[in-house]
């Protein structure tokens, strides 16, 4: 009797240990929702909930690709810069109003979109080549790509602002259907497909195993370089698509308009509980992480608070998420 008790407490303990990275973000989310609902009368409503979803939709698309990258224990710091460059590229290939002073190259909508997607793909392929073939750590490689993408943005707009995009992009970025913004639908689509691929395909399993123990994956005959190269490409393409929709969502395409997205996307993945050491977590975690960030950003606007303090609060939330992330990893390894 007592032995079973001990076994059961042991099992419960090990379950809690195992699930800490999944449980902590959910509790954080619940706590934030309850706090803001009490602190502000305008927070808890369907309209505001849709607001939040809309506000996190662009970050969500970026975060899908970033989840893949972080699951393999790599990092991609170029996501926001690629989103920026690709968003500007789509505008560059579109006829702009007369008052926009950009030497651009107007093309039919569909060709513009394909060319722009190829730009995103090219960024990803260069990163993949540098990380896998040459062997540059992803941290540094994507830092270089970030600068290169910023350079592309700067050269294409030269300090100007562009406003026009192909119709499809304008619709998806700024339109709605049945009162729901298309960006939300696209984000849900990306999260859903991202989850299915990770959970139900061989490729997804290889990503987890590569992140869990890269050497073991290699000794099991997994083409680790291909897996890591692929996630870098997927991340760049997700960022690119997010960038295209975002310029329509913002209503303008210009330099430096994605500054907060890098930190937000990384924060969403990590706050959600995906391990920075790879192999643990997933899109489910990222969804919770996105909601935590979305609720936090939105909620702080609903209560009377110094807007400069908000930046500090976001930093503190990220720090606590990092602590839980590393702590959960240690618990797992000490088993």
């Amino acid at each position, binding site marked *: 009797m007592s032995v079973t008790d001990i076994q059961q407490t042991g099992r419960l303990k090990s379950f809690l240990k195992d699930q800490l990275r999944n449980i902590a973000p959910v509790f954080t989310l619940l706590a934030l929702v309850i706090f803001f609902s009490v602190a502000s009368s305008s927070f808890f409503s369907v309209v505001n909930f849709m607001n939040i979803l809309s506000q996190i939709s662009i970050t969500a698309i970026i975060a899908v690709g970033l989840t893949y990258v972080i699951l393999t224990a790599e990092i991609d710091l170029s996501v926001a810069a690629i989103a920026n460059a690709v968003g500007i590229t789509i505008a560059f290939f579109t006829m702009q109003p007369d008052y926009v002073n950009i030497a651009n190259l107007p093309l039919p909508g569909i060709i513009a979109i394909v060319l722009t997607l190829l730009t995103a793909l090219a960024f990803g392929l260069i990163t993949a080549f540098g990380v896998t073939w040459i062997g540059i750590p992803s941290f540094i490689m994507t830092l270089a790509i970030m600068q290169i993408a910023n350079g592309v943005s700067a050269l294409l707009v030269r300090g100007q602002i562009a406003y026009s995009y192909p119709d499809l992009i304008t619709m998806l970025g700024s339109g709605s259907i049945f009162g729901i913004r298309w960006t939300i639908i696209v984000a849900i689509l990306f999260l859903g497909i991202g989850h299915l691929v990770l959970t139900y395909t061989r490729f997804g399993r290889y990503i987890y*195993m590569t992140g869990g123990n890269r050497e073991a994956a290699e000794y099991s*005959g997994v083409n680790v370089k291909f897996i890591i190269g692929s996630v870098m490409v997927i991340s760049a393409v997700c960022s690119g698509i997010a960038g295209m929709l975002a310029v329509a969502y913002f209503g303008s395409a210009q330099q430096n308009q994605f500054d907060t997205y890098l930190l937000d996307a990384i924060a969403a993945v990590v706050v959600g509980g995906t391990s920075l050491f790879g192999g643990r977590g997933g899109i489910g975690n990222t969804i919770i992480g996105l909601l935590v960030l979305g609720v936090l950003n939105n909620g702080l606007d609903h209560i009377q608070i110094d807007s400069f303090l908000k930046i500090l609060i976001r930093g503190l939330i990220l720090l606590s998420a990092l602590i839980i992330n590393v702590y959960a990893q240690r618990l797992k*390894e000490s*088993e």
Partner: protein
Amino acid sequence: MTAQSLSGGGLPPLLQLSNVSKSFGGIAALKDVDMTLQAGEIHGLVGENGAGKSTTMKIIAGVYHDYDGEMRIDGTKVHFRSAREALAAGIGMVHQELSTVPDLTVAENVFLGHQPLTKMGTVDWARINKEATRLIASLGLDIDPRTRMGSLPVGLQQLVELSRVLFSGARIIILDEPTSALSPPEVKRLFDVLRKIKADGRGIIFISHFLDDVLEISDTVTVFRNGKKVATEAAATLTKDAVISHMIGRGSIGMHMGESAELTGDDSKPVVLAAEAISDGRQLRDVSLKLRAGEITGVYGFMGCGQIELARALFGKTRIKHGRFLLNGAQKSFKSTAAARGEGIAFVPENRRMMLFRTEPVYKNISIAILDRIHRLLLKPKAERDIAGTRAKDLQIRPPNPNMMLGSLSGGNQQKVALAKWLTHLPKVLILSEPTRGMDVGAKEDVIRIVKDLRDRGVAILVLSTEPETILTLADRVSVLRKGMVAKEFNSGTIHKADLLAAA
């Protein structure tokens, strides 16, 4: 320090161990060991893996301090509490794995940790370089102290490390496998240096598996077996055969499992994988090997002989510089482990951690190598669990639950899981590095049974080990690897452990 007369002369010995015993968790690793090192003596220390050499050295070097017995230096009783104390008492050690810093200069390496300072408190580079030159020249070497350490060949790096130990004031110098990575001329140069050091009145303990080297350089040789000292004799009166029989015990030859084997190499069996004169530019030199269907080829050699590199080259983990591989007669180059796996080659490395996922369930550990065979795109977890369940039953993995976390299995069962991942679709070639190391008897027998069964089903198997027993128990033919080259091949007839030790 002045030169002293060799051995004795009324002076107490430089180092003396009396009745030293040490046990780990109730299991005796060292039993009543006596050993004496005189000033101006080179004392060879030999024995099989696990005979007690390392434990003895760690006691002398202050790494282990809870031992029984007595240790004296210059006749004064000492009991070191830490490696630092041993160092301060004049005990210096050069490990098989060098601890030099490749990106610093030779001089910086010599003075690592105690650089002389100028009056200004900055590092006195002029003095470092001058002193280092003097120290290195005193060993009869000609190395520019400003050379980057990493650009020197291993033999010279080792001598620089030796200079550092000398500079730190060591009078008792322990060398662990100093010749394992050296070419014959480098060995000769090392021996010249050692003779100079010994003439200074210092004492040297020379630990090695290379018996020829030990007999050549030592004045006295001590042999360990199963935690006991079994012999101390003057090197001049010893032969290699005599040392080997001390090491493995007289009269026991052929008496125990794994002491000898009847080889049954059959040249009519088809060659599946042939390595022809492969070199990796570092460890392996012109290694040729033929793996035949339905045969177990054993590769025996000491630690660092190139086995690890050979296994990795065959599995596409590392690339070879020269030579070629033939798989069923067709030339192949394995660009990645995935490519090697695709060609039907399977590998279980010596360290289980290298190929297992501790925090994943058993079934994912087993299915990882065959996912593409189960389905091209979508996973089928049920099929994976079924396959894992079947393997667990075949290999008697305990408990036979495919959903268990791998990390909660015992070591022997983890090793079986590592094997299990290659057994659903029989590989053409199975490479096993140290397949039974560190396993309990029961698990060991299970693994031996499994490997022999695979051989009987036609798999070409390569077993690499530093343990002669493993090779003798499993192999149908044996190649002995020595410093990256095939030193000897045994294809038929009876061979004894002594033959392997003598050839390596």
